[in-house]
C-alpha cells in the first residue's frame, strides 16, 4: 500500500496543475506598485560621496529616528577621537556609553554612567581586602561597599572592577539585579526638589488634580 511506483510523479503533476489555475503573485512593477507597510524604509545602506568616502558622519540621527531601533552602527566620531557605536545593547555595550548618548542628543539617563566624582577609595579597598579580591564574592563585596558609603558610588564600582578583574558590566548587572543595592545616595528629599525644579508645572498640576478629585493625591 505504501509504495506505488510513479505515485510521487502523479502527486507532483497534480500539484503543478493546481498551481496552473491558482491566482498569480507577480506584481507588474512599473504599472503596479506593491503594497508596502507604511513604516517600511527599504534597505539600509551607506552612501558614498564624490570622493569615494562614506558620507556617514556617525551622527546617529538615523539611529535616533529609527522607529523600531533596528540600526546598529559604529565608527569614528567626526573629530577622529573616539570609536563610537550605536546598536542594540546585546550587540554593543557601548550603546549606552556616555559619549554615544551625548552625541545622539539623548540625556544620560543612568547614574552608573554619569561622570563620577572622585571619592575616598579607602573603605572599598578595605572591603576588597576582606574578601581577598575574589570576584566570586561579588555580592558580599557590593553589600560591604554599600554599608561603607551608604550607596554604590560609580568610582567604587570601577575600583572593584579593576581590583577583582571582573567586568564592569558584570558588576553593574549584579548591582542592578538586587533591589537592596542602589546607586543614588539616600537623599530622597533633595532628589524630589530637583525634580520639582526641573518640571515647575508639576506642583501646580498636582494641586489642581487633587482639588479636582477630592484631595486624594499627594
Amino acid at each position, binding site marked *: 500500500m505504501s509504495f506505488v511506483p510513479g505515485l510521487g510523479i502523479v502527486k507532483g503533476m497534480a*500539484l*503543478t*496543475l493546481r*498551481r*496552473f489555475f*491558482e491566482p*498569480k503573485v*507577480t506584481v*507588474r512593477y512599473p504599472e503596479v506598485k506593491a503594497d508596502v507597510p507604511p513604516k517600511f524604509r527599504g534597505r539600509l545602506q551607506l552612501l558614498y560621496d564624490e570622493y569615494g568616502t562614506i558620507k556617514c558622519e556617525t551622527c546617529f540621527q538615523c539611529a535616533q529616528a529609527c522607529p523600531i531601533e533596528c540600526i546598529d552602527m559604529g565608527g569614528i566620531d567626526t573629530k577622529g577621537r573616539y570609536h563610537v557605536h550605536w546598536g542594540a545593547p546585546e550587540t554593543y555595550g557601548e550603546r549606552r556609553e556616555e559619549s554615544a548618548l551625548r552625541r545622539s542628543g539623548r540625556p544620560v539617563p543612568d547614574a552608573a554612567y554619569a561622570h563620577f566624582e572622585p571619592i575616598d577609595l579607602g573603605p572599598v579597598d578595605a572591603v576588597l581586602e576582606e574578601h581577598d579580591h575574589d570576584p566570586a564574592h561579588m555580592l558580599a563585596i557590593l553589600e560591604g561597599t554599600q554599608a561603607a558609603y551608604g550607596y554604590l558610588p560609580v568610582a567604587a564600582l570601577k575600583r572593584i572592577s579593576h581590583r577583582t578583574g571582573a567586568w564592569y558590566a558584570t558588576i553593574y548587572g549584579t548591582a542592578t539585579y538586587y533591589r537592596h543595592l542602589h546607586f543614588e545616595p539616600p537623599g530622597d528629599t533633595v532628589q524630589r526638589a530637583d525634580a520639582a525644579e526641573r518640571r515647575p508645572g508639576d506642583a501646580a498640576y498636582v494641586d489642581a488634580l487633587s482639588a479636582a478629585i477630592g484631595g486624594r493625591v499627594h
Partner: protein
Amino acid sequence: MTVVARTWNRLTLPGKVVFTVVPLLVVLAVALVVALALFGEAVLEILGANLPIVRFAVAATAILLMTIPTAFLIIYMEMKGIALMNLRIGPDRVGPFGSLLSVVHGLKVLMKEDFTPTGADPTVFTLAPVVVYLSAVMALLVIPFGPGLFGVDMNIALLYFFAVGGLTVVGLLMGGWASFNKYSLLGGLRSAAQIISYEIPLTLSVVGVLILAGTMSLNQLVQNQAGWFTDWYIWQQPLGALIFFIAATAEANRTPFDLTEADSEIVAGFATEYSGMRFGFFFFAEYVNVFIVSALMVTLFFGGWNAPFPFPATSLELDPASLGIGLLLLIAIVPVVATLVFAAPFWLLRPAWPAWYGLVIGFVLFNLVAVAAVVGWAYVSFDWVAGLVWFLVKTYFFVFVFVWMRGTLPRVRIDQLMNFAWKWLMELAFINIFITAGAILVIDALSSGS
C-alpha cells in the same frame, strides 16, 4: 586591395554563403518567372505528368515552413505554461498575452554573433545543426495530419521514422566533435549514449502495435483506429503506450531526461560552443522534436486524426453565388452591423467607458464569431479540416503534457537514466511484445477452434 575584396574578406563563412546564395536565388527566381511566362503550358504539362514528384516537393516545403510557427507556438506554450505553474504571469509584454515573445527570441538569436571557435572544423560545425534540424523535419514527412494530408504514404513509414529520427544522434556527435572542445565532445557522447539507449525501448514498445495492426504504414494505422475512441490502440497497448511515452521523452531530450542540455552539470553539452542562429537551430529542432513525438504518440495510440466518436454526417448546402448582387451587400453590411450589435451591450451596461472601447470590443467579438463560423463551416464541409483539427488538438494536448512534466519533474542522474532504460524499460517492452503475441495466438486458436 579593393573595397569589395576587403568587405568580402571580413565576412564570416556563413556570411559568404548567404551573400552568394541569396543573389543567386533571386536571379533564379526571376528566371523561373520569365520561363513560366514563356513556356507556362509546357511546364504545366510536365508537372502534371510527374505528379508524385511535385506532390513530394510541395509537401516537403510545406512541412519545412510549418515547423517554424510550430516551434514558436511550443516555445510560447512552454514559457507561459511553466510560468503559470510557478505562480508567475510569464510573458505578457509582446503581442497579446506575450504570444509574440518567442518570435522576438527568434529575431534575437538571428542578430547575435555567429561565432566559430578557433580550431573547429567549420564545415562539420556548420552542418551539425542542419543535420539535427533536417532529421526532425524529414521525420515529419510520414506523419498523417489528416485524411490525405501527409507527405509520403510509405508502407514502412514507422521504420523510416525511427531511422531518420535516429539521424539526430549523428548531428549531435558532429556538433560535439567539431566544436574543438572536450566538454562539447563529452556532452555530445553523453547525449548520443542517451538517445541510442532509449531508441531500443522506443522501437520495441511499438512492436506490439505492429503485431496488432499488421502494417507499418502510419496512414493505415490511423485508419485501423477509426470509429469510437474505444478502438484506439491505447486500450490494447497501455503498457506499450507508457513505455513509448517515457522513451520518447528521453528521445526528445525533455525533462526529466534532458541531460543533453543539463546546464548545471555540463555547461550546455554539445551546444557549448554554438551561438547565434546555429544554436537557434538546435533549439528549433528540440521543439520540433517535441511536436513530432507528440504527433507519433497520437498517431500510434490515440487514433491519429480520428474523432473520438463517429461524427454524424452533416453537410451544409451553401451556394453563395445564388445570392447574386445581394452577396456584395452582405459582405459590405454584415461586419458593420455585427460590430454595432456586439458593441451595443457594452454601451448600455458600461456608460462610463469611452465609446470606442465598445466599438473595439464589438469588432474583436465579431471577428471571433466570424472565424469560429468559418472554421465550423470548414470542419463540417471538409474531411481533412476535421481530421487536422482533431489531430492538432490531441497533439497539442501531449505537447502540454511535456510542458507540464517540465514544470514538475526534476532531472534524473545519468546513471539513473541508463539503469532505467536498460533494466526496466527494455524488459517491460519485451514483456509487452510477448503478452501481445501470446494473446493474439490464443485468440486465433479460440476463434479457429470454435
